[in-house]
């Protein structure tokens, strides 16, 4: 399980967010669905910025300061200000934003559960072990 897991989680969350938006907007309320989509997009953008900040800072060799500052600048003032403005203005129900934001963690949980159930993180058995069986 490497960094490609993070990329796959981000892509899967975007797909789930769009599907949830369509379903909720059609069967419950368009505003609630849009709030879920905005929450989902914010969560994915936040996760993407967090990934870049941490991979720039936490590395075995020298810290990539330029990249760390750029992504920290995107994450903390820009994304957080956008989130506060969306909450403050009351365009969407806060519950819809939280539901959309939580989709990312649902995807992480289900993907991790899938890997555990399918035993994807265990090393493949060698040919000798296979013959012995």
């Amino acid at each position, binding site marked *: *399980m*490497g*960094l490609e*897991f*993070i990329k796959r989680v981000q892509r899967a969350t975007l797909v789930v967010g769009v599907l949830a938006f369509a379903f909720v907007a059609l069967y419950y309320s368009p505003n609630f669905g849009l709030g879920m989509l905005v929450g989902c997009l914010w969560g994915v953008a*936040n*996760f993407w910025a*967090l*990934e870049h900040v*941490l*991979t720039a800072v*936490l*590395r*075995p060799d020298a810290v990539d300061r330029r990249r760390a500052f750029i992504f920290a600048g995107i994450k903390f003032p820009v994304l957080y200000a956008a*989130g506060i403005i969306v*909450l*403050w203005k009351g365009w969407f129900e*806060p*519950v819809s*934003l*939280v539901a959309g*934001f*939580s989709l*990312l*963690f649902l995807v*992480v949980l289900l993907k991790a559960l899938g890997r555990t159930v399918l035993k994807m993180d265990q090393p493949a058995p060698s040919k000798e072990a296979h013959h012995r069986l």
Partner: protein
Amino acid sequence: MDFQTALSLALPLGLSIAALGSAFGLGRAVAAAMDAMGRQPEAAGKIQTGMIIGAALIEALTIYALVAFFILQGKIGG
């Protein structure tokens, strides 16, 4: 103490406790990840992945507290 006073005292207190807990948790997680990466640089990718997911989960708890703050803020001073 009435409901309004209790809420106006508890809201900022609760949010600051959530922020403090998140800060301590993130600090410990990053320190442990740096330590693990120093011991096993070849496992940096796996450590970073676990670290990123852990950091996102810790951060999410603070964001939930912030959203709860915004929801309950409207009930103060009504």
